[in-house]
């Protein structure tokens, strides 16, 4: 296994090793050569160990699928492959051409005879009965951000079929499954179309947020949505679903939705919210329809105009006739006609333009947004006073977050337009003092650099700044875990940390395991044993193979044991 460099070196090393073993004193150079040999040997051993770990049991890292999942995946792949047949099927080889030509001629003769024959219903077993249902297609109406079908980026107008898997990494995606059924997926959502026909539109929301409008005035298939925590059935309503690792939240704005789980079947009406699996829905504040209903209504599937809006810098909110569509870069199918486009980006001059959209045409608008003029010299970004660190024990009786996170954590739906029924630009935009341009990425990296340098105050300021300036950015989402850990480990602020961990857990992400561990630790420090127990159970269910699993099992048994002797009702 050891890879020595050459024969001479081997001989030299052996001699040196013998001399060393015999207790002879070695020169510094000789000791260096021996140490180098040891390093090489250790490296070679490590290489062998890593290689054997990589091909361990001939299984993929992360483990192989169980037989059922594997079979299901193979079925799915074969189905998709059949939709795009191989070259051979499409272009038969020359050897078979005469046979195929003969077969085609026979088919023509038989087909012609069948066509010319008088039609007698059910007279022949060869004639297939008409299908009860007809397959549908789902069409992409809008892409604002990054949305994929498999590994391919999605574009408006694209058709999706049963079996299609859709991921929205960033931004929003709007789909139309039927003339009466439209839905929007927000960032970090993953969905699979299970069935698409005139009887039923069935899909699975694996994670993220889905907002749907089903028009009861138009006859339509039943919409059925599977989530990890239950199934919802819809026939004419406005509702949203938010799936996180922990729960599925159903909000109904109009009509009724039936939510079925293994235990319960609950009818949820307008103005109600239900956590799937619970017996009773809660009343939700506010009965107005959310603004995204207008967004869905603004788009058009058939005979539409393709509109592309991109801006420099990106991320400007686009309004069409005062309806928020999404953020740039944005591609959408719009109804023809004169449309007022408005673009807003914080710190930049808002733009307004009237475009005439013609049926079947494509319109592209690439715009540059100018920063607002300097009104007075504002502080540079680095000199901006940083809000004092939050001391949750002092002013967060309800377990509130540091202020910058609270706004988002109150609303589980990360909808940029949800809180803005009137999308009029903010009056103070033009008067805002200019800031040096900072991106979330820069802020995150700077804060993490401070964190690893153990400059806790600077790191905390960086985290808070990122959360304040870009609360809905992916970077802010990631940083919640790091900031939560900092608050927990360095500031002894479990309450504030808990809020951050829960905000992260609700939306999910690659650091979900760390966030769940953080939540457990925060609850433990707060002395909330019952909640801690639930959190540990949830963790063990989600990460049964975690390194912390055995330690948490022990902790769980410690938490549960006193209850056995507890006689209180």
């Amino acid at each position, binding site marked *: 296994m050891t890879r020595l460099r050459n024969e001479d070196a081997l001989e030299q090393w052996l001699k040196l090793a013998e001399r060393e073993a015999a207790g002879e004193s070695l020169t510094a150079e000789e000791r260096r050569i021996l140490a180098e040999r040891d390093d090489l040997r250790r490296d070679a051993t490590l290489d062998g160990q890593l290689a054997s770990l990589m091909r361990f049991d001939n299984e*993929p890292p992360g483990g192989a699928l169980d037989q059922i999942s594997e079979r299901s995946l193979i079925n799915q792949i074969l189905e998709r492959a059949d939709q795009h047949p191989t070259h051979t099927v499409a272009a038969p080889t020359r050897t078979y051409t005469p046979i195929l030509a003969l077969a085609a001629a026979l088919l023509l003769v038989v087909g012609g005879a069948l066509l010319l024959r008088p039609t007698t219903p059910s007279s022949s077993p060869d004639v297939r009965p008409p299908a009860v249902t007809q397959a549908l297609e789902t069409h992409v109406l809008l892409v604002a951000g990054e949305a994929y079908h498999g590994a391919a980026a999605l574009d408006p107008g694209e058709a999706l079929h049963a079996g299609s898997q859709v991921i929205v990494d960033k931004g929003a995606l709007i789909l139309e499954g039927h003339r009466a059924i439209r839905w929007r997926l927000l960032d970090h959502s993953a969905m699979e179309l299970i069935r698409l026909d005139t009887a039923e539109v069935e899909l699975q929301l694996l994670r993220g947020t889905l907002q749907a409008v089903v028009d009861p005035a138009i006859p339509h298939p039943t919409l059925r949505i599977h989530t990890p925590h239950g199934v919802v059935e819809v026939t004419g309503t406005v509702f949203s679903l938010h799936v996180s690792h922990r729960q599925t939240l159903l909000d109904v704005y109009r009509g009724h939705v039936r939510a079925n789980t293994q235990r319960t079947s609950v009818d949820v009406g307008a103005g109600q919210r239900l956590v799937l699996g619970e017996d009773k829905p809660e009343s939700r504040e506010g009965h107005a329809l959310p603004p995204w209903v207008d967004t869905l209504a603004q788009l058009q599937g058939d005979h539409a105009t393709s509109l592309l809006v991109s801006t420099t810098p990106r991320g400007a909110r686009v309004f069409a006739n005062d309806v928020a569509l999404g953020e740039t870069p944005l591609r959408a199918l719009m109804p023809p006609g004169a449309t007022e486009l408005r673009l807003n980006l914080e710190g930049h001059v808002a733009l307004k333009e009237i475009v005439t959209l013609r049926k079947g045409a494509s319109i592209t608008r690439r715009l540059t947004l100018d920063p607002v003029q300097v009104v007075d010299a504002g502080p540079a970004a680095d000199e901006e006073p940083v809000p004092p660190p939050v001391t949750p024990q002092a002013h967060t009786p309800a377990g509130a977050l540091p202020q910058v996170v609270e706004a988002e954590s109150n609303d589980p739906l990360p909808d940029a337009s949800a809180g803005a029924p009137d999308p009029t630009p903010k009056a103070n935009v033009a008067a805002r003092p200019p800031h040096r341009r900072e991106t979330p990425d820069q802020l995150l990296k700077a804060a993490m650099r401070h964190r690893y340098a153990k400059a806790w105050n600077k790191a905390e300021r960086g985290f808070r700044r990122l959360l304040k300036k870009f609360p809905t950015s*992916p970077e802010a989402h990631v940083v919640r875990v790091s900031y939560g850990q900092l608050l927990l480990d360095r500031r002894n602020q479990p309450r504030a940390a808990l809020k951050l961990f829960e905000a992260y857990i609700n939306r999910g992400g690659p650091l979900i395991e760390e966030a769940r561990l953080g939540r457990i630790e925060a609850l433990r420090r707060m002395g909330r044993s019952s909640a801690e127990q639930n959190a540990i159970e949830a963790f063990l269910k989600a990460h049964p193979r975690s390194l912390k699993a055995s330690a948490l099992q022990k902790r769980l048994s410690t938490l549960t044991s006193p209850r056995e002797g507890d006689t209180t009702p």
Partner: protein
Amino acid sequence: MGHPLTHPLTDQHLADLALARSASQGEIRARRELATRLLRRVQTSVRYLVGGHDGDADDLVQSAMLEILKHLDTFEGRASLDTWADRITVRTTLRALKRRQSRWQRLTSWAQSTSRSEPQDPCADARVGELRRRLALAMGRLPLEQRVVVMLRWVYEYSMPDIAHVTDAPLDTVRYRFKVGRAKLRSHAKKDPLLRAWADAGGLS
């Protein structure tokens, strides 16, 4: 277990060729047999190439499998079916990764790789899985070209000329990529407390 890419046809290769031909002509049983045979291999390759992000890996596995099924008629039996599939998997995955290497993915990858990890003494069952997960993450921190070479060499024990053939790269370049990639991976492994503790304790032996 070598993978010579040019060799006289053996019984195994003839069987591969027959299977691929049947599958390319739409024979359902052959297509299923072929997909079943290649799925784990494709999953292994993709997950190491992706660097442990399962959400992406599953999509890419499907894409690679679809490409393999789509191009079965181009399989001529000059290499083994596995090698031929590896070549398609590597190309498809690299293409997709280069396209999809968005800011968000780089960021989460970075955040994940710098997340806190303490040495543990886990139970044996969970340990190998976790070690492999960490190794896949460490792979994800190598440049794509080095990742491919290390994966083909260590997982499938390809020779350097075979890797050069699969990756369409000059032999010297492949050797260099392997040398550098291996050193980086070793370095990442040494920095990971769990992997280091495992290696110090003798690895899988």
